[in-house]
C-alpha cells in the first residue's frame, strides 16, 4: 500500500528538535574545523585570524610529531582491534557451545566494559607501577626476574602498555555481540556441517565466521568511532603522550597544539587530516550501515 506523505507539521514536531541540536553541535563544528584549518590564529581575540590557505598542511607534512602521532594512532587502533576482536571470536565461540559456567563468564567478561575510562586507566596505572605494581609482582611470581620495569615510562613498552587497558575493557562487549550473532545462526547449518564431518575449526572458519561477519564489521566501526575519545583518555592519564612522544596520538596532539601552544588553525589542520583518513575508511562502511538501518535489521 502506498501511503501519502505525512503532514509536514508532524514531521517537524518529531524530527526537528533532535535534528537542530545535532546539526548545531556536531555538523556545525565539523564545518568550522574545515574552515579554521585555513587560518593562522592564536585563538583568543576574534577577528585576528590570518588567512594562510593551505600553509598549515605544508607545515603538517613536515612536522615529525604529527607523523609520529598518526602512526602511533594507527598502531594503537590496529593492535586493539586485532587482539580484542580475535580474543572475542575465540571466547564467544566457546560460550556458544554452552559450556559450564556460561552465565558467570558472560557477566564477568562484560563487566569491565561498564567501567569508565578514567577508572580503568587509574587501575592500570597501578598495575604498571614499577615498585608496587601487580604486573612486575606477577612477573616475579612466575619466575621472570626483570626487576622494577617502568612499563609506562620507557619508550619501547609504553605504547603497547597503553593498549592493554583498552583491550581489557572492550573484549567483553565484543564477546557478547558476537555471541548474540552466533546464536542467530540456524542450528540446521551447524548440523549440516557436522554431518559432513567438519571439525570445530572448519565449522568455525567456514560456517560461523562468514555468517557473523556483518556483526564484526559493525563492531570494528564502533571501536573506530570511539577510539579517538578513548585513546585520548588513556594516553592523557597514563603517559601524557610520553616518554619522548612515544605514545603521542592525534587527539592528544590536537589538544596540545590548540590549548597549550594556542595554534588553533594548526590544530584544526591536524583534525582535518584525521577526518580525511576516517572518511576514506568510512565511505564504504557507511553504505553498509545505512542498508542495515533502512532495511530494518537489528543494530548489531
Amino acid at each position: 500500500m502506498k501511503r501519502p506523505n505525512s503532514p509536514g507539521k508532524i514531521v517537524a514536531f518529531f524530527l526537528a528538535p533532535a535534528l537542530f541540536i545535532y546539526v548545531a553541535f556536531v555538523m556545525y563544528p565539523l564545518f568550522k574545523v574545515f574552515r579554521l584549518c585555513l587560518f593562522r590564529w592564536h585563538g583568543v581575540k576574534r577577528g585576528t585570524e590570518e588567512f594562510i590557505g593551505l600553509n598549515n598542511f605544508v607545515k603538517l607534512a613536515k612536522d615529525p610529531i604529527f607523523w609520529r602521532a598518526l602512526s602511533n594512532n594507527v598502531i594503537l587502533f590496529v593492535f586493539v582491534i586485532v587482539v580484542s576482536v580475535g580474543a572475542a571470536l575465540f571466547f564467544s565461540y566457546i560460550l556458544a557451545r554452552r559450556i559450564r559456567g556460561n552465565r558467570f563468564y558472560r557477566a564477568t567478561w562484560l563487566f569491565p566494559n561498564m567501567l569508565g575510562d578514567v577508572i580503568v586507566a587509574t587501575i592500570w596505572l597501578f598495575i604498571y607501577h614499577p615498585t608496587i605494581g601487580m604486573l612486575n609482582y606477577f612477573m616475579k611470581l612466575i619466575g621472570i626476574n626483570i626487576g622494577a620495569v617502568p612499563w609506562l615510562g620507557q619508550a619501547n613498552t609504553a605504547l603497547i602498555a597503553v593498549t592493554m587497558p583498552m583491550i581489557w575493557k572492550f573484549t567483553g562487549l565484543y564477546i557478547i555481540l558476537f555471541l548474540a550473532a552466533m546464536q542467530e545462526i540456524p542450528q540446521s547449518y551447524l548440523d549440516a556441517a557436522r554431518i559432513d564431518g567438519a571439525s570445530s575449526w572448519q565449522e568455525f572458519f567456514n560456517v560461523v565466521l562468514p555468517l557473523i561477519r556483518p556483526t564484526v564489521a559493525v563492531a570494528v566501526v564502533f571501536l573506530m568511532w570511539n577510539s579517538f575519545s578513548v585513546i585520548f583518555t588513556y594516553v592523557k592519564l597514563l603517559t601524557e603522550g610520553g616518554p619522548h612522544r612515544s605514545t603521542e596520538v592525534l587527539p592528544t596532539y590536537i589538544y596540545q597544539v590548540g590549548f597549550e601552544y594556542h595554534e588553533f588553525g594548526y590544530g584544526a589542520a591536524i583534525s582535518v587530516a584525521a577526518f580525511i583518513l576516517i572518511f576514506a575508511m568510512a565511505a564504504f562502511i557507511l553504505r553498509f550501515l545505512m542498508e542495515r538501518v533502512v532495511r530494518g535489521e537489528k543494530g548489531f
Partner: protein
Amino acid sequence: MWFAVKKDFKMFLNRLRDSTLFVIIQIVCLAYSLFVLIPVLWSFTSSFRVSVEFFTNPFGLPSTWKYENFIYAWKQGNVAIYFRNSVFITTVCVVIIILLSAMASFALSRLKFPGRITALFLFISGLFIPAALLLLPLFLMLQDLHVLGSYAGLIPVYVAYSFPFTVFVLVPFFNVIPPDLEEAAFLDGASYHQIFWRIMIPLAKPGLIVATIFNIFGIWNEFVLGYVLISKKNLKTIPLGLADILMKQHYTADYGKLFAAIVIALAPVIIIYLLFQRKLTGRLLEGAIKE
C-alpha cells in the same frame, strides 16, 4: 576380537580428548575471568588500605580496614559534589537523549516525507565524527555562545553526540513494528501523537531500555568533552573529579583515598549492571518483534 578392543580404545581416546579439551577450555576461561576480576577486587580492598600499606603490603588484605578513606574522599575529596553533579547531568541528558531520539527515530522510520533517507544518513554518518577531533571548534563555539564552562554548554553537547548511536539502535526497532497496527489506529481516528505514545513507545521498549542503559553509562563515564569544556571544580562530574584526584595523588601518594573515590564512583554502575545484567548479556539489541 582385537577389532572390538581397538574400537573401545579409540572411544577411550576420544573421551580422553574431549575431557582434556573441556579442562583446558575451563582453565582458559577461568584465567580470563581472573584477569578481569583481580584488578577490580584489588581496587576494592585497596580502598580500605592505609596509604603506607600500598608500599609495605600492596596485594594482601589490608591489615586494618580504614573506612575513613571513604569519609575523607566524600567530604574533603569533593566526591560528594562530583557525585551530585554526575547524577544531575546524567539524568537530564539521558531523559533528553531518549525522548528526542525516540521521536526522531519514529519520524525517520514510520513517517513518510521527502528527505527521509538524507536525514537518516546525516544521523548515521555521525558515527564517524568523533568528538575528540572537534574539541577546538566546540570550545570556540561555546565561548562565542557564552556557555563555556557551564552546564548550559555541556548538556547540549552531550546530547548531540549521543544521537548517532541512539538513532542507529532505535530505528531498526521502529522498523520492525508491523504497519497494520498503526493503520488500524489511524482508521480508529488516532492522532500521530497517540500512535507514538500508545503504540510505538510500548513496542519499541526493548530498544529503548538498551539505549537508555548505554547512554547512562556513556554520560556517567564521559571524560574528554567535560575535560575541555568544564573547568570549575564545583561543576565537575565524577570522571573529571577522579582525574583531578589522580593527578594530585601522584604527588601526595594518598592512594587509599583515591581508591575510595573510585569505589564510590563505581557503586551506581555496579547496581545498574546487576539489575540489568541479564538484559545486557542476553541478546543485546534484538528487534521488538521477530520478522
